[in-house]
Every structure is written in structure tokens, then in C-alpha cells.
């Protein structure tokens, strides 16, 4: 069944506007997806009527806020099928989630000479926190490479994992290549050698159904603003057995049990990792986004997104001199490319004049740029509210602009 996109687009008022006099075509969804009116209204309603700090007072509004915040946690838990709500920690986003694990897991388990594995296609947010931790703990960062078509060289993983390997971190979906990595296989291989696995789900959660128990991952990190929710909120799923053994990431309110100047004891999960006043308005919006996705008949991870990707890929390939980076058989709706003789900055600037929003630059993935020996790329990333007409207009625009160079 072909979904009625025009109906869905009415839920996203931001899409109905003109940029530089042209109808907006929003193809920068991998950076930030747009929020449906249901999310915006839920957050506004909360701010207008309920706002109070959580877990800290006996008054009516504080109780209401605490209830809403914890209900949001339960919504996230259900969405990813975590075993218990205490395994869901609210963070500012994927970046903080990964930093939390890199720091706290590192403090608890990483010693001089230990090894950490990441992949060559990671976003900087899944490289730098590990690098910082390795520097601090005297550990070594090892890299699982990918092939030119965007697939991980999974056959090298067995020999990469040694008795020194303490943790492995990999993207569910690459933010540049779009590759959907075989994370089940990676997790199985790692677990055979007792190595826990963190999955960076920033680009996975928007496109794929997640069941952390089925996947068996030890940690899963994702962001609200990439799954139609607000910015500044994200989640870290962690298995209790690890979280219980890890020291807190930040100190402050809510994460404590009892403080004296000699010693502080810490609160239980998940509060141990939620120092300070959390972004509860964001958490409520995050849950509203999940509700929206689940209520919507036409879900983001439907075949429709894949059809958008297939059509766009075919059309782009017809443009002479256009090279797509990453064509793994299993791929999400993200396309990075370059047109010979056209600098991505120039292309992005001119596309903007035509009302088309794409991402250009190094895409927070320097190692991917180095792999293909390019300085920059152009990225078009699609969401379930995009249309085939928009893809047509985009390809026509590219042909028109290419002629200017």
C-alpha cells in the first residue's frame, strides 16, 4: 500500500514553507529530523501547565512532572524492549551516552595495555570519547576497517579481538555510508570472547526497530532529535550488570544517596547516572515522538524509506560524474556523494538557494573522508515524510547546478 504522504506531512508544519522563495525540500534528516505537531504541542502543554523540578518536592506540580518524566522513561524502555526501566538513562543525546560509557566503563574495567575496538566508519562521537579514555587509562584503540562499498570487514573481527579487548563500539547505521551494520553478528562474535558491545544508534534508531534484548547489546545509545523528538535529550540503554559496576559519570544532585565531606554514597540506577536537573521537558517530547512513531500507521522503518533510497540512488547514478560513497546491500536512507569538479560547499550553497537542505562537509567522520581520499562530501538523508517528487526536483537541481561549473 502506498502511504498517503500528504496527510503525514500535515503533521510537520515546518515542511510547508518557502526558503529563498522555493518550497523547502528537507534532506538533512540524518542531522536533525523534524518534529510533528503532536510533539511540539505536548511539550508546550507541559511547559504551560505542569513544569516543576522532579523527584525533589512534595507539591502537586513536582509530582506531576516526576510522573511524566518516569512515564517517558517507561515509553523509551518499551520502545527498545529493555528488561527494566532502570536500564534506561536519560542523557543529552548519543554523544553524552557514549562519553558516559567510555568514562565510567573505563574507570571500572580498563587498565594499561587493554584494548578497545571501534570501526573505521564511526562518527567522531564514537571515536573521540574512546580515544580520550584510552589516553587516560593507557589503553590501545584498534580499528575494524570497511570495504570501499561501505561494508565492514567483519571477517577481520575474530583476529582483532584478543584477550586484551575490553569493549567494542560500533555504529548501528553509518552516518555517512548509510550501511546497516550486521550488529547481531558483531555482538555474537564479541560475546563469544566475553567482550561487551556498545551500539551507537544515533542513525539506527530513526530507521530500524530496536530490541536490545534480542540484539543482546550491552549498551545502546541514541538521540531524541533524530527520531522526530526535541534536541538535548537522548538515552543510554545499559545492561544492569554493567551499570551497577560502573562509577557515576558526573557528580551532583539526584545521583547521590548520602553526602558527607568524607564520603558520598550513590543513588540506585538509573539516578546514579543522572546528575543535576535532567531535561525533563525534552524527555517528555522524546516520549511523545516515540508515541507518534508507534501510533502512526506509516512507520519510519517501513519499506517506503527504502523505496526513497532506491529511487534516489538510481536517479543520482544517472548524473555524469556523480560518485556515491557506500553502496552496501543493507543500507538506510542516507546517501553521500560528490560530483566531479564541483566542491560540496559550492553545491550546498547553490542547493540552498533552490530551497533544498542537504548537509555538506566532513560529516563528523574524518576517517571516512580519509578512506575515500576526499576533503568533503554532500549528504542527502531522507525521512518518511519525504516524497518521490522531492527526489525528482533534487536530481533536476543537481543537473542544473552542475552545468554552472
Amino acid at each position: 500500500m502506498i502511504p498517503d504522504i500528504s496527510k503525514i506531512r500535515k503533521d510537520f508544519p515546518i515542511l510547508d514553507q518557502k526558503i529563498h522563495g522555493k518550497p523547502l525540500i528537507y534532506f538533512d534528516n540524518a542531522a536533525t529530523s523534524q518534529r510533528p505537531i503532536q510533539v511540539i504541542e505536548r511539550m508546550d502543554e507541559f511547559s504551560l501547565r505542569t513544569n516543576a523540578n522532579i523527584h525533589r518536592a512534595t507539591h502537586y506540580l513536582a509530582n506531576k512532572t516526576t510522573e511524566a518524566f518516569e512515564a517517558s522513561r517507561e515509553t523509551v524502555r518499551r520502545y527498545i524492549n529493555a528488561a527494566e526501566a532502570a536500564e534506561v538513562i536519560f542523557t543529552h543525546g548519543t554523544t553524552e551516552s557514549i562519553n558516559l560509557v567510555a568514562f565510567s566503563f573505563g574507570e571500572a574495567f580498563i587498565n594499561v595495555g587493554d584494548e578497545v575496538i571501534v570501526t573505521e566508519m564511526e562518527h567522531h562521537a564514537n571515536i573521540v570519547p574512546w580515544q580520550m579514555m584510552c589516553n587516560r587509562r593507557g589503553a590501545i584503540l584498534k580499528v575494524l576497517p570497511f570495504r570501499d562499498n561501505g561494508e565492514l570487514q567483519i571477517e577481520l573481527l575474530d583476529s582483532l579481538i584478543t584477550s586484551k579487548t575490553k569493549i567494542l563500539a560500533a555504529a548501528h547505521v553509518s552516518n555517512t555510508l548509510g550501511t546497516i551494520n550486521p550488529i547481531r553478528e558483531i555482538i555474537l562474535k564479541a560475546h563469544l570472547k566475553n567482550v561487551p558491545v556498545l551500539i551507537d544508534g544515533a542513525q539506527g534508531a530513526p530507521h530500524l526497530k530496536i530490541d536490545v534484548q534480542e540484539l543482546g547489546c550491552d549498551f545502546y545509545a541514541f538521540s531524541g532529535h533524530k527520531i522526530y523528538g526535541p534536541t538535548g535529550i537522548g538515552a543510554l540503554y545499559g545492561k544492569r550488570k554493567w551499570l551497577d559496576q560502573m562509577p557515576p559519570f558526573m557528580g551532583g544532585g539526584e545521583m547521590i544517596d548520602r553526602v558527607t565531606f568524607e564520603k558520598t554514597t550513590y543513588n540506585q540506577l538509573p539516578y546514579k547516572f543522572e546528575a543535576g536537573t535532567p531535561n525533563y521537558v525534552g524527555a517528555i517530547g522524546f516520549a511523545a515522538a516515540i508515541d507518534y512513531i508507534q501510533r502512526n500507521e506509516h512507520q519510519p522503518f517501513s519499506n517506503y524509506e527504502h523505496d526513497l533510497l532506491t529511487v534516489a540512488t538510481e536517479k543520482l547514478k544517472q548524473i555524469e560524474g556523480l560518485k556515491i560513497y557506500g553502496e552496501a546491500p543493507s543500507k538506510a536512507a542516507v546517501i553521500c556523494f560528490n560530483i566531479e569538479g564541483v566542491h560540496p560547499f559550492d553545491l550546498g550553497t547553490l542547493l540552498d538557494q533552490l530551497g533544498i537542505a542537504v548537509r555538506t562537509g566532513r560529516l563528523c567522520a574524518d576517517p571516512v573522508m580519509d578512506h575515500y581520499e576526499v576533503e568533503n562530501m554532500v549528504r542527502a538523508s531522507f525521512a518518511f515524510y519525504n516524497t518521490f517528487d522531492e527526489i525528482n526536483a533534487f536530481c533536476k537541481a543537481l543537473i542544473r547546478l552542475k552545468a554552472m561549473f
Partner: protein
Amino acid sequence: MTIDEIQQEIVEEFSGFEDWMDKYAYLIEIGNEMAPIDAKYKVESNLIRGCQSRVWLHQEFTVGKIKFEAESDALIVKGLVALLLRIYSDRTPKEILESEPRFIDEIGLRQHLSPTRSNGLLAMVKQMKLYALAYEKISAKK
């Protein structure tokens, strides 16, 4: 001509373009026509790195004037670089320090000099001003 007069001249050149497309096509044209920077100056120490595009800036100070050479890997940026060189190269430090590149605003391309655009252009203007400041101080000491 003074810096101000050249800026005025550029503004007039652009006033003929009605469409944004023509404006950018012209920038691309001047970018394409611009003499490349000498390869020996296209080095890391002259590189102004933006996330979006890179600019190389070389300078020499002779007989009281600073001569700039520059280049960018993006053509639109290169076109704007060419315009910046047209007004700022071969000028005394005082002239450079006393003038702002107002023409960019007036030709409707202000967004390219905004701090949110990491294309290296704003950093290039700052760098030119820093050179001017340094040479002004050196000249004053002599």
C-alpha cells in the same frame, strides 16, 4: 583607488544581476579566472581550515604595504577570496585595519561572512587584519 572606492565598484558590478543564479555564476567565473596561489605557499602553515572549505593565505610586507595571495578549494569561496584580495592586497596596514569588507553585505552575500559558516572566509578576513596589526606595530618600532 581607495579601498572604499573599490568596494563601491564591486557593489556596482553586482547591481546588474537580478537573479541570485547570475550572482553566483559571476563569483564562480572570477573564482575560475583567479591566478592560483604559488604551490610553495599552499602549505599547512598558510591554511585556514573551515569544516566546509579551505582557504590558503600568504602575505609579504614590502615598502610599507602588505601583498596577499590566497586561494580556496571551493569556487564560490574562491570568487569571494578574489574580491577580498582586490580590496585588501597591496595596502598599508593602516588602510586594512580601518576598513571593513562591507561590500559582501551590500551585494547580498553576507551569509558567507557569518561566523556560522565555517568556510574559512571570516577567518581569512581576521587573519589579514592580524597581519596588518602585526606589521603596523613592527613599523612603529622602527
